[in-house]
């Protein structure tokens, strides 16, 4: 299969127009299956086919993809919806080109097995990502008045093992799998999606300015990315090979078992309704609900308008 992929890449490369637009794309984390569709689109030549010459760069664990969009080192990024909405209201207006995942993968892993509800988290030291993703936990903290001592982390595993924190936030496709693979069984696991905090997560974003300037490129990029994800859905094993290539290039400490589980979970949360083909579209209703909650907690000053946010009025 690797030979087939390489051959296809060579053939497609020959067809690339000489005037292909240069695009730097940055997913929101270091290489992993979470971004398999974009790697596949690049490796299989879907971008070049669309007339886009894509370079993929990754953020560091302490410098987010939105930062890279802000500093101009990236053109198109992936981000979680909530960070994109907050950034749109505060820093830079973003346009959602495609909504890949439709459900929350946020979980809380606690050492104490007796913790079975949010109010029991009161006063605990809980790990959260240094780079963000913490709006929902903090809203939960405020709503339940828990006064949690949030400890920012780059990787929560060793903090948890060493006993430096009582619990940690985790993504079900990422940190939770790492815990299991390290032989760690958390005392209890709380899923945010089951406790009134189920919001779509990963999406494809550009700045409004970039979108206005290059609407066709943006749409073509989104379409080629969607094609990449659809190929991944049908070719998981081959997709994993592609992911591992990127993983090795960046020296990411992971393995194919970890990436396989991550890919399975990501593809599952891409489905709006379990078992159905993904729409890759942000629901207006989801954005509306998120707007209201973020407004209530002061993360945004006014609701982000759906049409503008999805590039409809631009």
């Amino acid at each position, binding site marked *: 299969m690797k030979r087939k992929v390489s051959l296809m890449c060579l053939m497609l490369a020959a067809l690339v127009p000489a005037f292909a637009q240069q695009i730097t794309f940055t997913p929101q984390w270091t290489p992993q299956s979470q971004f398999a569709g974009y790697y596949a689109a690049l490796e299989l030549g879907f971008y070049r086919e669309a007339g886009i010459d894509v370079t993929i760069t990754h953020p560091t664990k302490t410098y987010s993809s939105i930062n890279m969009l802000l500093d101009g080192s990236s053109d198109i990024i992936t981000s979680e919806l909530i960070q994109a909405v907050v950034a749109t209201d505060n820093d830079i207006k973003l346009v959602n080109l495609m909504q890949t995942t439709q459900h929350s993968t946020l979980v809380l892993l606690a050492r104490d097995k007796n913790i079975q509800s949010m109010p029991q988290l009161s006063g605990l030291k809980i790990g959260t990502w240094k780079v963000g993703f913490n709006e929902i936990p903090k809203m939960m903290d405020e709503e339940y008045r828990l006064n949690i001592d949030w*400890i920012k982390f780059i990787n929560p595993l*060793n*903090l948890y*093992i060493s*006993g*430096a924190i009582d619990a940690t936030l985790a993504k079900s496709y990422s940190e939770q799998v790492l815990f*299991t*693979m390290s*032989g760690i069984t958390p005392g209890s696991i709380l899923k945010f999606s089951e406790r009134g905090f189920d919001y779509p997560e990963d999406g494809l974003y550009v700045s409004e300015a970039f979108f206005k300037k290059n609407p066709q490129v943006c749409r073509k990029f989104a379409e080629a990315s969607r094609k990449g994800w659809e190929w991944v859905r049908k070719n998981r094993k081959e997709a994993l090979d592609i992911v591992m290539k990127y993983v090795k290039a960046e020296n990411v400490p992971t*393995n194919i078992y970890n990436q396989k589980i991550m890919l399975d979970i990501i593809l599952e949360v891409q489905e709006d309704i379990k078992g159905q083909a993904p729409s890759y579209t942000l629901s207006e209703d989801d954005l509306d609900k998120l707007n209201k909650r973020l407004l209530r907690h002061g993360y945004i000053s006014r609701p982000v308008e759906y049409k503008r946010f999805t590039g409809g009025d631009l």
Partner: protein
Amino acid sequence: MKIGKFTPNVSISGRLMVRVLIVSAIIFTLSFSLFLRMSANKMREEATKHAHSELSNTIHQIDAILQAVEIAVENTAWVVPQVLDSPDSLYRITERLLHNNEFIYGSAIAFEPNFYSKEGQFFSPYSYRGKNGNIRSRQLGTDTYNYHYMDWYQIPKLLNKSYWCEPYYDDGGGEKMMTTYSKPLYNSNGKLYAVITADLSLEGLTELVGNIKAFDKSYNLMLSRNASYIVHPDHNLILNETIFSSTYGESDESLKKMQDDIVNCKEGEVLRDMGGDKFFVFYSPVETTQWTVAIVCPLSELHKDAKILRNMLIVLGIIALLLMIALSYKGIRRVVAPIEKFSNVAKKIATGDFAVELPNITSQDELKELHDSFENMQTSLVKYIEELKFTTANKERIESELQIARSIQMGMLPKSFPAFPEREDISLSAKLVPAKEVGGDLYDFFIKDEKLYFIIGDVSGKGVPASLVMAVTCRLFRSVASYINKPEEIISSLNDSLADGNDSNMFCTAFIGILCLKTGELKYCNAGHNAPLIVDPEGRISMLNVKPNLPLGLFDGFPYEGQETTISRNTMLYLFTDGVTEAENNNKELLGDDKLVAFLKMNVSADPGVLIDLTFEEIKAHANGAEQSDDITVMCIKYC
């Protein structure tokens, strides 16, 4: 083709050999199996001890290095507060730490954000060894290397104690796989202001672990606290996989035990199935860092010596069995050879050679007993044959004499029937079949003065004694009846003669009759005999009225009473001895009077000769092959 059951003609020695072989093979196999199992267990115990001893030695060396790092940091940390006023002096501290401790790869004194306002968020003097070994220094923290969230900084800060961080690939710092010992530093108010670290390149430690050679085909692992490989023969797995990665989703006892042990820093060993092969994993924790060092050994390697031992034992076992067969065969042959000789002797004896020489047995065992038994048998056989010869000769002589006696006895009885062919007024027939060569039954008749004198009798007992009494009775009847014409007097005379000198107490039942052939007047006297049956001209059957009286020969002078009647012509007298009515079949059932009368009713019209033949046929049919137990005599007299 149908194949019959094959019965091998195997000698005793052959069978003994097979049994010895089977029993020996079973004992050998069981003993070897037990021995091998015990050996395998012992070897496994030894291997476990050996593995843990190797692990222990290596862990001691690792601990020594780690403790050296800890001591170096502790001995340096106190200097830091002395030079806080001169941030650039801090570089000399980290440089000196490296200079004095060649096993330390790098060292940093990482400060809290804005500790020095002019330095901003990040200030961390850092010294490390360059490619040529020179000690170089630089400021470590940047926006893209925010050490405040690195494990080596954050965890000791949160735990408020020194900490060995998990091995990591330091991309932005030392650019090597390393681990860092961090000691938090506090000001006089107890507030943390910096963390001093010492980086230890894992090259030295991994080499130590990699060099463990516990078993020929074993390999070694070192795992961090989060179960990531620090040492693994496949370098691609280092820091990329954990020992549980490939078993994600699986759940079995050995995996759970290993997981629990590693998480809880316990030593142990488990048998794991990895890629279809079984491996023993011996593991022990490094207490300082709570890492785990493990030796992975194929099960086949642990059993290698046991396998060699097993093969040696199999070869030795086969040799021992072969030797046992050879020696047993010789021994058994030695024991069995005399038996074969005895067998040949027995064959010769069977052909009549009783004087055949016996094998010479010198031992005092079962063979000696067999020899003596054969010797006794030979003596007994010779004696027995001699006796047999004598007995046979006697028997032949007696049989010959009995045949003669039978001829004589039968010769005494009238045997030409019909008895009086020239006479129209009488038809008489009789038949006597003795149970043995000679018998005790008798009959006789003759005509004198137009009167038929007749007798039928039965002497007690059978054989020669009875036949002698029978002969005497017959002669006496002829002689007495020749001059006495009353049946009771004839009977009395016979009784007196027989009773005289009857020491053997033999007796004789008898019925004597005198039939006047002109008038049909029948005078008769019975002496304990069966009453005769009368078939009248109309075919009616009745029993002649007789007084029982005593048999002859019992009491001298017994007063016998005579009786008389008159029979019409065409009346038949049917006389018989008890051998007729007491004839038995195989079920010991007697013919009986009723059956005899029924038989006569069926044959009332038969002539005496025919009736007698039919009587004997009836008895034969009743006996149905049963041996005749008593003499049988029937006499029919038809007055015409």
